[in-house]
């Protein structure tokens, strides 16, 4: 979908990512999703009187990794208090970084080549989680509200992009690329559905690419790549329709409703909190040494852009659009290691990317647990003609379901035993003898009949023959 003629959108994203640390940002409680409510808590993350925060070094290291992966300047930084009342905010203030963030002034290059500036990527603590029961189902007007403080104090990094995104598809691509980078850096598990990566989008529109920015609205808590794209698209169109109807955009925070596919007002700028930021007196300034920053940067594994380049090289460099899409999706879903492993083991790159992009991707997240070696072994069997494509796909599904295993054994379990070359020859001869007319037309150049013979062979072998071997056999018998 595109915007009406003459209109442009300007988008900036704020992404909160939970860090994959063992413990919380300021205490020793487990950083764990899905535990019994209020079991991962202590005086510190409950904000009990007299408790004090102590910064988790592991979180600092992950924040620096994110900064390095986003080409940020890692700076001496400090913490501040962001003051506002909310029941899931244990201390009624959030410890965050304000005027001195740990990472600033970086960039992220989208796969389409667009460079999006990263203004900052700073550390802060997460809040608890409130569930409103009965009544309105929101904080005001529900019958009761329950708070789970397991998430209170979980380390977050907030990554703020510049206003450099120009379409809903780009907004999605930015979030997807950032997610891949965060996973690659080992900083986050990137599970949007569990809330470990949450996105807010600032959207404004203007007439033409050089017009001044319009008034922006912020859409809160977009929790899937799809909702990012839909919400940004919807919001831009909403603003354009308003302006074209002679109305004025009011700066406000908006809520995205996944079911209706619409945004609605959460609070206006006038209702916004005055957070009264001031330096957090319970923590000391943070000044990681140049050696540490350098060490962390040097130890970063390859980032998605590099990995896409690696896959493209494996495919011979000049690739089709369809292959490029596969490369993008395979890296985005973090499955490229399967392709690399299979190609290294000797499987053809074209076969490997097809199996990863089409079959493995379809079985996420279970596919992530499959040992790469099992995948490679299966592709070698397929490549050697011991399994047909259909059989290989079925065996792959079984392997993923089982979390791995010997592909040969899995094939046997399915009754897929590759036909001996001798047996295939006999069946081919039989099929040719039984269909002399078709064989003659095939010999006269009607290639379509190859399919006819293959079908016959498959019927006789109950699908166990290797299609490629059948083709080879037919060609060699052609006059």
């Amino acid at each position, binding site marked *: 979908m595109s915007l009406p003629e003459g209109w442009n959108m300007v988008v900036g994203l704020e992404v909160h990512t939970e860090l994959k640390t063992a413990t919380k940002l300021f205490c020793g409680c487990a950083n764990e999703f899905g535990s019994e409510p209020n079991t991962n808590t202590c*005086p510190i993350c*409950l*904000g*009990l*009187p*007299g*408790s*004090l*925060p*102590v*910064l988790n070094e592991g979180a600092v290291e992950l924040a620096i990794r994110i900064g390095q992966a986003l080409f940020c300047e890692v700076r001496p930084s400090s913490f501040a*208090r962001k*003051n506002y*009342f909310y*029941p899931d905010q*244990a*201390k*009624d*203030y959030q410890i965050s970084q304000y005027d001195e963030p740990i990472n600033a002034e970086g960039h992220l290059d989208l796969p389409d080549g667009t460079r999006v500036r990263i203004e900052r990527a700073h550390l802060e603590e997460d809040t608890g989680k409130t569930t409103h029961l009965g009544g309105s189902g929101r*904080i*005001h*007007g529900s019958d009761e*509200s329950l*708070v789970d403080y397991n998430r209170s104090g979980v380390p977050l990094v907030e990554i703020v992009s510049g206003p450099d995104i120009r379409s809903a598809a780009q907004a999605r691509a930015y979030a997807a690329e950032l997610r891949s980078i965060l996973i690659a850096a080992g900083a986050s598990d990137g599970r949007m559905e569990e809330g470990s990566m949450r996105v807010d989008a600032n959207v404004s529109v203007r007439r033409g690419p050089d017009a001044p920015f319009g008034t922006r609205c912020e859409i809160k808590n977009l929790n899937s790549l799809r909702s990012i794209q839909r919400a940004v698209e919807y919001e831009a169109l909403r603003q354009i329709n308003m302006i074209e109807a002679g109305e004025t955009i009011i700066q406000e925070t908006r809520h995205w409703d996944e079911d209706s596919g619409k945004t609605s007002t959460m609070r206006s700028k006038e209702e916004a909190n*005055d957070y*009264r*930021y*001031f330096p957090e*007196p*319970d*923590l*000391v300034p943070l000044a990681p040494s140049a050696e540490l920053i350098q060490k962390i940067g040097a130890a970063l594994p390859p980032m998605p852009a590099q990995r896409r380049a690696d896959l493209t090289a494996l495919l011979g460099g000049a690739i089709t659009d369809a292959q490029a899409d596969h490369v993008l999706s395979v890296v985005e879903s973090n499955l490229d290691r399967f392709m690399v492993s299979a190609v290294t083991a000797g499987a053809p790159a074209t076969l490997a990317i097809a199996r990863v992009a089409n079959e493995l991707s379809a079985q996420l997240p279970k596919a992530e647990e499959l040992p790469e070696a099992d995948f490679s072994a299966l592709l070698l069997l397929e490549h050697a003609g011991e399994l047909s494509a259909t059989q290989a796909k079925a065996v792959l599904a079984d392997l993923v379901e089982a979390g791995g295993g010997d592909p040969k054994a899995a094939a046997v379990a399915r009754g897929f035993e590759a036909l001996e070359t001798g047996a295939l020859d006999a069946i081919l001869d039989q099929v040719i003898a039984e269909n002399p007319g078709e064989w003659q037309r095939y010999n006269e150049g009607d290639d379509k009949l190859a399919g006819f013979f293959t079908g016959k062979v498959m019927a006789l072998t109950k699908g166990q023959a290797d299609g490629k071997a059948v083709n080879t056999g037919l060609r060699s018998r052609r006059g």
Partner: protein
Amino acid sequence: MSVTDLAAKIRAGETTAVAALEHSLSVIAERDGELHAFVEVQTERARERARTIDAAVADGKNPGRLGGVPVALKDNLCQRGTVTSCSSKILEGWIPPYDATVVTRLMEAGAVIVGKTNMFDFAMGASTENSASGPTRNPRDPSRVPGGSSGGSAAAVAAEMVPLALGSDTGGSIRQPASLCGVVGVKPTYGLVSRYGLVAFASSLDQIGPFASTVADAAELLEVLAGHDPMDSTSLTSPVPEISAHLSDGVQGKRIGLCTDLVEGSDPEVVAAVRRAAEVLAAAGAEVVELSIPELRYGLSAYYLIAPAEASSNLARYDGVRFGNRVDGVDVTAMNTATRTAGFGDEVKRRIMLGTYALSAGYYDAYYAQAQRVRTLIIDAFAKAYENVDLLLGATSPTTAFEIGSKVDDPMSMYLSDVCTIPTNLAGHPALSVPFATGSDGLPIGVQLLGPGLSEEWLFAAAAVLEGGAA
């Protein structure tokens, strides 16, 4: 008997922890009905603890440096299983599930905790009158205040209910009541004693410290409390000063500055006491010079922006959601408001409003940020002064203990009680008050010694000299 002697006798089996405790309990029973130094006396828990100490001694074990010595805790220090309410209504009945680091250190040293002492509601006043359970009275004259906010601890030591007590000092809350009650009170270097488990008032200024009858006893307690704590990020990692070892070092060869800005404006008898203290120090071999640090005059104004600003944030958590009192409302905001309206005293509300205002958009630079710049000025001015002198001398409180009720409705005059003590907190330096004279009203007058960061060895040695020359 000194604390070291008492602990030594208990260790040697010449007396017992139980006997020391029972003595404390009997003085409390005799005097606390009138004075109200304690908000809670943990009789049975303390007795059990004293018996454990005696049993350890009987087993030939060393019960620790303070083995069997009764100690009182200010009501803003968390002790597992005991109500810690900051003598406020909003935290009435709150029982912390953990021990403050200072409580752990006391227990490791063998101390017997006798109870929690009364304080000004959330440590925000110089008189210990505004407490949810009523005022504490000065043991030297029960019609007078004991000072504050750690008035209960000062009174408990002054009335000999306990030989040692812990207080906290944000702008003078240990030193001023020590002066008014005639005991020794110390505000250590910021970061020397862990704040973990101290209910925060103004985090960048709060510091826990000792009350004792003598300089030596105060040193004994401070050495037990001091030292790095990984639970407090602002806790110092530098070596703990060896205070007791240097207690008899005297002041020979030391340069001591009589800081006129910390004397002027005080009652004439207080001024006279400070001048005589200077003579005592000079007679003991110190070179005493008079000097002025004009920047200190801005301390009070800066303090009454910075401390309320931090307090407005620190006290936000008393919202009725998880602990302390709750007053119901139609929704969560109404519940928060009703709880805070009913639970906070007037002075606490005043400071929350001051602090909230000072941090608000549009006012931050003019108030909070400006106050922080003044704080830096004061730190620099102190640093410059300490290039020329080793220690500073001044008044602790501009007056002796005032009448109960005389200032409680006049916040400005109450705030002025801390004018001489506040600059130290802004700088993070140590200072102490040592009883030195008696006014014509028969009330004690303390003088204040101040030093640069971690100068406790010199400070205590100088205080010991003054103690010897006190009238």
